[in-house]
């Protein structure tokens, strides 16, 4: 599976707001931890090493 980079989530504005809301009131450390959990959960959901590698690469660019 190749990494999806075209728009794929219609309600992106809503998700963005919910992402920020999830972090509300957290310390930096807690926010880091939450992000780490999110990455892990989403990586498992994607379930495709090739796509995840492409995502890592894009994120590091």
């Amino acid at each position, binding site marked *: 599976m190749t990494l999806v980079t075209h728009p794929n989530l219609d309600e992106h504005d809503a998700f963005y707001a919910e992402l920020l809301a999830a972090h509300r009131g957290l310390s930096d450390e807690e926010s880091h931890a939450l992000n*780490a*959990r999110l990455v892990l959960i989403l990586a498992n959901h994607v379930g495709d090493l090739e796509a995840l590698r492409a995502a890592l690469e894009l994120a590091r660019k």
Partner: protein
Amino acid sequence: MAYEYKPYNFVAPAGLTAPEDKKKVVIVGAGPIGLAMAIELANHGQPSVVLDDNNVVSVGSRAICWSKRSLEIFDRLGIAERALDKGVTWQIGRTFHRDKEVFSFDLQPDEGHKMPAFINLQQYYVEQFLIDRAQEIDLIDLRFQNKVVSLDQEPNGAILDIETPNGMYALEADYVLACDGARSPIRGMLGLEFEGEFFEERFLIADIEMEAEFPSERHFWFEPEFHAGQSALLHKQPDSIYRIDLQLGWDANPEHEMTPEVVIPRIEKVVGHSDFRLDWVSVYSFQCRRLQSFIHGRVIFVGDSAHIVSPFGARGGNGGLQDVDNLGWKLAAVLDGRADSRLLDSYDRERVYGADENIATSARSTKFMTPADGIERTFRDQVLNLADKAEFARSWVNSGRLSKPCTYPLDAPDNRRLPPSARPGTVAPDAPLAGDWLLSQLGRDMVLLALGRPAPDVGGCRVLSPGTNDAIRTRYLGAAEGAYYLIRPDQVVAARWVDAAVEEIKNAAASVWKGI
């Protein structure tokens, strides 16, 4: 009860009085790997001299966990029964984070295999059983208190200088197998360096004897209250002996940590009482390194002398036994003139590949257990945090991945309709076979396994054409109605076909002996 070390006798070698004939193979080191190597070569009809600087088995237990593949190899070496009788297994593993159990697993035995997934057995017992076996075999000349002090390579062999309690002598050999362990003096004599990763971390490893009721389980703690910020492991061995691993941190002073006044209170915290006897204690730092190449002229490195890993995953001794498995039949064929010495190059190629897999896997486990401060620790802790909430994260928790043989990358005939678990390069999966086992029937020959197909006459390999059963169908046939499997003497699948002409099989067999 504590293991009773019985020193083996020194017998003055003939070489002290007159030069000995050139030997085909001299094995340096009578650890598990050197001993297994000698027996494996004898199984293939080859004599060897085994030299060890010491006269007792491994002091302290070191390796405890022996994998299924090692047990299958032990079976061919003739010690599996003793190992299984003496060894113990645990089935329940519990993982704790802080003081909470995050999850547990139950290792159900896999049906239809002669050997269990692993056993726990102290290294000194394994060595004792191997020595007993080696001493029954005329082809093996086992010499204790024979210390190799120098080595000279020649075009067709090597000369060793050997120190004994009665003086020095020399031995000449066609091949020298360096099975002299992690600190390998032979590596030093050849000026070779280990390359790889060193972990700035120390672990206290202790064996304790306790009669107290304690479940036969594996316990692993991440950051337990009793050992703040570090990790700890508890494992059961025979004779009411338990293994405890405690992470100490890099700044720990090994001498100080090993004193009973420091060790005993720490262990009391792990087991919750003080009713135990300290059997053995040692402090280790771990490395994941290997030689760039395992063959240097007529010297071949096998086991810890060639590669070392951190012990999480038990890939040291088990990986070394896979070296033995890979080298034995190849060296025997070369010594017999049945194969060109180039066959040995495939030992180097395949076992370097195997070592790299073991190194990568062990390094990943070590990193998970001992994350650096900062983001590494964040990710590690969040995997643990998720483990009791989401099933997927449990499999991400890495407290060691038990040794499994690698799949060699062979460029060999294959048919993708057949099950991937028996593809070329993998060890042939075991299966029950009319009151016996497939792996026992394969033995140590090159075998053509004809399943649901006529058994052709292929020179140079034994043909086995058993009836099929459920296990054979699942592990070897899948949806295909029949198949041919060409299996190497180390029980690795060399090639396979749903159907094949005799010529194709013959060509594949010829490639095996050429090491391609």
